[in-house]
């Protein structure tokens, strides 16, 4: 069931079209990744989805209701977190969570604040002003704020930016767990392609304000034909390099390692050719194309 429907959304700023007639939907329990290079229109789209930027055209409907006409009712069930917005910095973590809990009229306020503090492991920070927190701690507090109202839909702008890898993994697992337990729907923007591949069911790729792809992460990666063959060459590194140059393969050498981009259907022939040239290798790994490859290819085209 679609719980968010975006129809023909457009935003023009004077002489620039930031978002150009985009339409998409979000299903209940779905995690959707919003990808695109810097300035593609992701943040502008998120702002329009949150009602803090008026669209030039088009509509945003949550739960079948128009955002502009039912803003308050809808925003009670939606929340947002961004690494790039801040909570009042002279207030302590607890004071911030307390006043925000009143904004959302949370029942059993104290219990919920204690619960959310434990979930995001910020127990030791509660009496500290925001100014004293590190970037990673601020991100965790922002996420705590975003979950405080048991949201049905979450919009997360770079949710794990500036987090240590172990905390980022914990947060990703937590998002997947929340989705499983409460069927929360999430829209994520991220520059971490591995993260998007791991948590997103579907990815929308935006560029120049337009949606240019809308598919699963695997589906998008599959549109890339190139695989990466990594070889630890025992004998014949020079011959391998000359062969790659002759065949116009893209490659990268690091010591005795060489990584060559080869079309999937040409891999077998490529390896046979190397054998014919007397190239011997100790290790081989063939890496299938990833979402990152897709992202890089799309951004290079642009």
């Amino acid at each position, binding site marked *: 069931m679609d719980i968010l429907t975006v129809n023909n959304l457009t935003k023009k700023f004077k002489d620039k079209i930031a978002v150009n007639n985009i339409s998409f939907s979000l299903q209940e329990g779905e995690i959707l990744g919003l990808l695109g290079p810097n300035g593609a229109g992701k943040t502008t789209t998120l702002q329009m989805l949150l009602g*803090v930027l008026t669209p030039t055209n088009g509509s945003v409907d949550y739960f079948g209701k128009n955002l502009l006409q039912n803003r308050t*009712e809808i925003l009670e069930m939606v929340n947002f977190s961004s690494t790039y917005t801040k909570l009042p910095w*002279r*207030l302590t973590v607890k004071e911030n969570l307390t*006043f925000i809990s009143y904004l959302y*009229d949370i029942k059993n306020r104290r219990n919920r604040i204690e619960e959310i503090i434990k979930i995001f492991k910020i127990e030791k920070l509660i009496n500290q002003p925001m100014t004293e927190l590190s970037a990673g701690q601020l991100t965790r507090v922002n996420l705590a704020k975003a979950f405080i109202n048991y949201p049905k839909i979450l919009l997360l702008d770079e949710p794990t930016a500036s987090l240590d890898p172990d905390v980022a993994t914990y947060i990703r697992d937590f998002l997947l767990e929340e989705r499983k337990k409460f069927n929360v729907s999430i829209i994520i923007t991220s520059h971490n392609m591995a993260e998007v591949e791991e948590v997103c069911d579907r990815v929308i790729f935006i560029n120049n304000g337009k949606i240019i792809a809308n598919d699963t992460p695997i589906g998008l990666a599959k549109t890339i034909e190139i695989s990466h063959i990594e070889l630890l060459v025992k004998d014949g590194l020079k011959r391998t390099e000359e062969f790659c140059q002759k065949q116009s393969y893209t490659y990268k050498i690091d010591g005795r390692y060489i990584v060559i981009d080869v079309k999937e259907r040409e891999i077998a022939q490529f390896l046979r050719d190397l054998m014919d040239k007397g190239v011997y290798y100790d290790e081989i790994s063939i890496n299938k194309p990833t979402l990152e490859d897709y992202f890089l290819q799309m951004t290079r085209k642009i």
Partner: protein
Amino acid sequence: MKIHRIYAVVLRFLYLFRRSYDRMSDAFYWPTIDLLLWGLTSIYFRSYMPDASKIMLVIMSGILFWIIVWRGQYEITVNLLEDLWNENLINMFVSPLKFGEWIWAFLVIGVIKALMSFSFAMLMVFVLYKVKILFFGYYFLPIIALLLMTGWAVGFFVAGLILRYGTKVQTFAWTVVALISPFSAIYYPITILPNWAQTVAKFIPTSYVFEGAREIIIKGKISPDKLIISFILNCAYLILSLWFLRNSFNKVLNKGLVKVY
């Protein structure tokens, strides 16, 4: 309109108040300095002009009542600036908070802080100079209400300017209200102003209130016309300034709340 959301915004600013020495000094330090300077000046004048027995009362009540106007506008504009400095405006408006509730919160916090500063200053006047301001009796209510209304109208207008032009015009938060003070006849009658300034004063609601307050001090009563004219002017300015603020907010929504700084 939900009380819990208004309370949330008020709470946010009350938390800030107790953690912010600059806000504390605005509430208590500056009124104290004003009272000391002007109080001592009044004592000096009185020693040379024994006939001017009410000079102390006129000046002290002027200072005290101006605190109401000042804090009314200050709480609107500086609290808006706090949200801009903290880049917190987006957090407020991605929540269910309505524009009207946000405004109500500013008004409530304005009343709380104005009464806090006013009561403190009133106590100081009594402690330092043994002057009792309470003799205004039930006139206090309309006087305070009308002065707050003027403060709010100026506050909404300046807040609208800040939303439109960002923090580069933040100095208006401290300066614009001072523009109306010479025409408000806080310490002197309107008649001593030049003609053109007297004309301007006719359009300033606070001028009627301060003239009225002096009437109470001198004659023991106030002409109701003054309060009525002040009320009508205040209503008109409040409507216009609220319209301007709402219009500025809509303009901001067109360029994005995150772009206001």
